[in-house]
């Protein structure tokens, strides 16, 4: 794992990352980038002048015993410029607070745009998670600091150049004493930051172990099991392995870093201090120069050049560190496009215009498109030799599946765990790209629909539905209700989903905020309540095709009964697919598909399949046995 990540990382040089990040920020807030460059270069140049030119001036005044007044004016001029510099700097820190938000907003819009386009299968790929989700979880604002550090580095270089120029003015030979350590620092500094980068990379694995173990101990969901079993011991071991590994890996790298630093110090003291002092002593004592003040001031200048370069290196490496994180964001926004291309382009071939305004517009546009091409209703679904396997895996989850479902049919998908039921519905909804075959919905290949409009055909409750930290009404409507009518619809949907009783107890009705994430008195749902909200979404959306993936697993029998009753009633005339492990619910369907190893092995109504006495009948009886014996 560690190695792989490293390989990917190596492809981007630090400067490449800085370039990308600065470009991103430039797109978000041009003025702030220019302002940062201006502020940091003027500051760099002024500081160099103040540290070298002014000091040289003061020393010369004292050596030559000039008028105090002359000194006074020079110092005053510098102080006035200094105040202007301070004002600029303060204004910059003010602007930063606003610019940070602008940049964040810009990145956020990019993420959303992208997230809508990336296929779901991509999200479920563990590499995607490793690479992006972890990175995107990081502070978004590192990039702006990366840019600031980069401009600080530029300022340092400017300051260094000023210092070199002044050295040349006094004695060209002195530049030698600055150039050599600078070259040394450059070389060692690069080695050092590379080493540091490798240390970071090498310890990610150990770090992850530590973080994971910590999480296991702090999260409540693990607490009971840890107390009943001895699993804590294993987790202690994982944690210890984590930090021991980090220690070992870091030790190797930091030994080298330490050596580089000693070398750097030696180079600095040896050449800058020892060399230049000896040279100056020689010039003044042996060669007979009398410019003591100028030469003394130049000692500071030699140091200034070296420090500027070191500062620039440090600033660029700080910048690089921050921009590396941004790299993932840039990648997230760019590289995924290819995989989507296929899907996108075909969508655009369609005469249907992609409307982004309102869902209803979208729907009617798509419907119009569908109607124009074919008279078949949307609920008419045809699978033609559909296969699916996960990327990099040979095993077919769905194996050349053929199926025709007519508008208004209620279809139950039944089968053992892993038979391909969930994959079936995900393919139908266009969440996964097909490996083979095609699916026609309303007589048209699903690839020919604009994805957004296509997704609008469906109302779905997933096994792993999510509750959002938003008001209840938005959690049901999945957008902001805009009229009283819409709000009524939401209440109605919640009632149908058996949520009425809970709703009455809620302080602000459907405006009650869910989860305690942001609101102290937010409402925290139990598993059953959350499921009811998820079901209410389908009622509220009133979609063309309803898909229920084990919607009742967290409900008690009474709630389950009512839920199905309402659901079936509300979706009369609509095509419904549902997956349930409770055979009693499957029985409610017009048609039952029994899946095994990615194919349909039995297909028919409950009665037909019971008569057939095959796999379905066996499974049904197995579950029914206990209920039937009692009478």
């Amino acid at each position: 794992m560690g190695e792989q990540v490293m390989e990917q990382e190596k492809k981007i040089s630090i400067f490449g990352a800085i370039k990308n990040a600065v470009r991103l920020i430039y797109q978000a807030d041009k003025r702030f980038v220019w302002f940062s460059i201006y502020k940091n270069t003027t500051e760099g140049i002024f500081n160099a002048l103040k540290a070298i030119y002014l000091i040289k001036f003061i020393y010369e005044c004292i050596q030559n015993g000039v008028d105090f007044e002359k000194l006074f004016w020079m110092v005053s001029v510098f102080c006035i410029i200094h105040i202007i510099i301070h004002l600029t700097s303060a204004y910059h820190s003010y602007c930063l607070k606003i610019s940070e938000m602008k940049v964040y907003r810009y990145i956020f819009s990019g993420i959303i745009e992208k997230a809508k386009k990336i296929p779901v299968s991509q999200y479920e790929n563990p590499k995607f998670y490793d690479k992006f989700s972890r990175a995107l979880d990081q502070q978004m604002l590192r990039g702006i600091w990366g840019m600031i550090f980069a401009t600080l580095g530029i300022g340092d270089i400017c300051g260094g150049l000023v210092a070199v120029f002044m050295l040349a003015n006094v004695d060209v030979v002195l530049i030698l004493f600055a150039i050599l350590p600078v070259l040394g620092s450059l070389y060692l500094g690069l080695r050092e930051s590379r080493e540091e980068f490798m240390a970071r990379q090498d310890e990610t694995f150990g770090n992850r172990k530590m973080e994971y173990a910590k999480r296991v101990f702090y999260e409540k969901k693990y607490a009971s099991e840890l107390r009943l079993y001895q699993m804590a011991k294993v987790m202690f071991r994982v944690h210890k392995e984590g930090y021991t590994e980090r220690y070992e890996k870091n030790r190797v790298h930091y030994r080298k870093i330490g050596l580089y630093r000693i070398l750097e110090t030696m180079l600095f003291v040896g050449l800058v201090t020892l060399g230049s002092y000896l040279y100056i002593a020689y010039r003044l004592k042996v060669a007979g120069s009398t410019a003591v003040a100028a030469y003394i001031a130049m000692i500071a200048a030699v140091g200034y050049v070296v420090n500027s370069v070191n500062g620039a290196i440090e600033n660029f490496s700080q910048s690089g560190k921050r921009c590396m994180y941004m790299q993932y964001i840039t990648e997230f926004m760019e590289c995924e496009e290819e995989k989507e291309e296929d899907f996108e382009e075909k969508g655009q071939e369609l005469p249907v215009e992609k409307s982004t305004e309102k869902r209803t517009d979208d729907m009617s546009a798509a419907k119009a498109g569908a109607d124009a091409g074919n008279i078949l209703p949307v609920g008419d679904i045809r699978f033609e030799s559909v296969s699916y396997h996960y990327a990099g895996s040979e095993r077919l989850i769905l194996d050349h599946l053929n199926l025709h479902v007519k508008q208004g049919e209620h279809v139950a998908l039944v089968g053992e765990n892993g038979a391909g039921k969930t994959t079936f519905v995900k393919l139908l909804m266009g969440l996964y790209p097909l490996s083979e075959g095609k699916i026609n919905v309303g007589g048209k290949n699903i690839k020919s629909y604009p994805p957004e409009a296509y997704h609008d055909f469906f109302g779905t409750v997933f096994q792993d539905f999510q509750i959002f930290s938003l008001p209840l009404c938005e959690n049901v409507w999945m957008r902001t209700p805009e009229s009283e009518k819409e709000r009524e619809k939401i209440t109605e949907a919640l009632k149908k989903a058996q949520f009425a009783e809970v709703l009455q107890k809620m302080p602000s009705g459907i405006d009650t905020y869910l989860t305690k994430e942001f609101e102290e008195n937010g409402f925290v749902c139990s598993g059953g309540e959350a499921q009811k909200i998820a079901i209410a979404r389908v009622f509220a959306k009133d979609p063309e095709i309803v898909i229920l993936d084990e919607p009742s697993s967290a409900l008690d029998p009474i709630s389950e009964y009512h839920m199905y009753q309402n659901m079936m009633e509300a979706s009369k005339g609509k095509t419904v697919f549902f997956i349930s492990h409770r055979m009693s619910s499957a029985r409610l369907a017009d048609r039952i598909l029994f899946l095994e190893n990615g194919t349909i092995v039995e297909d028919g109504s409950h009665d037909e399949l019971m008569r057939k006495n095959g796999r379905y009948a066996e499974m049904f009886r197995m579950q029914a046995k206990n209920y039937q014996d009692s009478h």
Partner: protein
Amino acid sequence: MKMKDINKKETKKEKISVFRILSNYAYLLRYAGKKDALLIYGIFFSFLVGGVGYACMDTVFLRAFINYLSGDAYSFRETAVLIVTATTLMAVLMSITRCAESFTRPRMIRLVGMMQEEMIHKVVDMDLMYYDCDSYYDDFVVTASQLEEMVEMAVYDLGRMGSNVMTVLVLSGLITTINPVIVIFPVLGFLINLFSRFRIIKLEYDYYVKRETLMRRADYSKRVFYQPEYAKEIKLSHIEIPLEKQFHAAIDETIEIGKYYGVRISLWSVVNWVTVFTILSGFCVPLYLGYLALVRRSIGLGEVAALDNAQGTVRNRLDSVNYCVDRIQRAGLFCEKFRIFMDYESRIEHKRGECEIPRQREVLRLRDISFRYDGAKHDTLKHISMEIRPGEKVALVGENGAGKSTLVKLLMRLYDVTDGSIEYGGRDIKAYDTDAYREVFGSVFQDYQIYAASLEENVLMDELEAVPVNAGQETEEIHFNDGDVDAGKNEPETAGQKKVIAALCKGGFFKRLQTLPAGLSTPLTREFMENGVNLSGGETQKVAISRVFAKNPQIAILDEPSSALDPRAEYELNHNIMKYLSDTSVIFISHRLSTTKDADRIYMFEKGEIVEDGTHEELMALNGKYAEMFELQAKYYKENEEILLL
């Protein structure tokens, strides 16, 4: 320490005295010192030495050098000797500090790791009720996540502080020997800085706190768009619209706050910079030195250079001291939490009891127990009495939220009852060692978890070495549910492995085990192993169930053990439970009444109370709640009857 005490302390957080902060700080350092004293002393030493080195470089040495050069009193040779001696000394002193940070870093990582290790040990020792406490997350998760940063800060900053103080002392000595007046400027600058910085820090802190709250909202909206679990909903709905709205509202507000605080912070910064850096350091000092040298003619060029550098360095170092004090304060505040946490004593976990736990199976009896969660307004359980005899199969049924899951947690002493008592073998369970008492139980919790460890460990739920390998014990034959499969690569090597394989078979996992690349040692989850296996919902549940079979406890508690299983797997599981846990007392919680029908006794729960109890036949005859629920479920399973379709 009780939770309430901690809560009280928390609210007082703002008022922690300086003394307490210092004492906390010392506590943290002592704690670190106990783990790796050499590291701590090493860091302090190198920083102190470095402080002296830097102090001398641009002042004492520079002054001597200028004086050597200025007059004709010294020859080139003498000057060269001075230069060589001084630079050698500098090089040594500076190298020590330069490399100290690199050499100590890995040891620091280990030190923090060791401290964290003690912390997580402490976490498992905490009573479960702690997790229900709201401030728990805020406090202790933060403590854990900041430990690394804080320990580093505490140690390095004290070193830096020592180094700075050292430099200031050396230079003040130098300045005083030449002209004491010069000291006034950096000290005055330091005081002004201290005052204005205090204001700025306060403003920045307020800004930060407000901004964090808003940013959490923005971050949440952002997170939804790349976390895999949300991906499907994002695709299929328009939930991005309200999320976007929430995001933009948060950003707008943050900008407003940024403007408000930005103006104030910038103004104070300008006041600070102009007075300290421009007026005092940039204007007064050079002019005063110029006045002394040019008008009064009391000092020479060497003194001017040395004094100018010295006062600049003193000011910088005092600044750093100021900065360090701020950070030390933060570390001290942080440590308050760390300290309370480390001093915490549990009431349930690892409690020693006065009695030995009985070896044979015993009766578990609940005498009129009630339970209320800390801070809750109502009892979750009210006056529950029941008796579970060895080998008995008991079912707890009822609607969501009726208190069933809470009850089983009480049985395992994860919480203590509020009223009444639980007895095992005729004694109150508080009389036993908590650890020994819990050994009696094997359990599948409703929210069972898979751990990032090998499959074998996930079933044993223990370190592998810790399992005694007594081959004689496990004599029963392994029954492979899937017919004549070849054990192949899963040929058990140790008695422990044999036990695990047997348990996995009983849990219905054997077929999947066959497909796992590394058999029992397959790492689970991709948490940190690239080749880790992520199990599906049903598979996960099967592993969780296997744990109970592997532990072979005296009392098994199964909370909705088949919720994620398909009908066949559920059927087989029920079969296996009856077959292999025949001597074990089993407590089931289930919604599916078919699975609980054969229980020796069924308890129907409603709102924390037992409303009906008896065998299935008795309850059906009673024709109450249970019968209603059962009929409702059974209805659709009656093969030959017409269903009244809705």
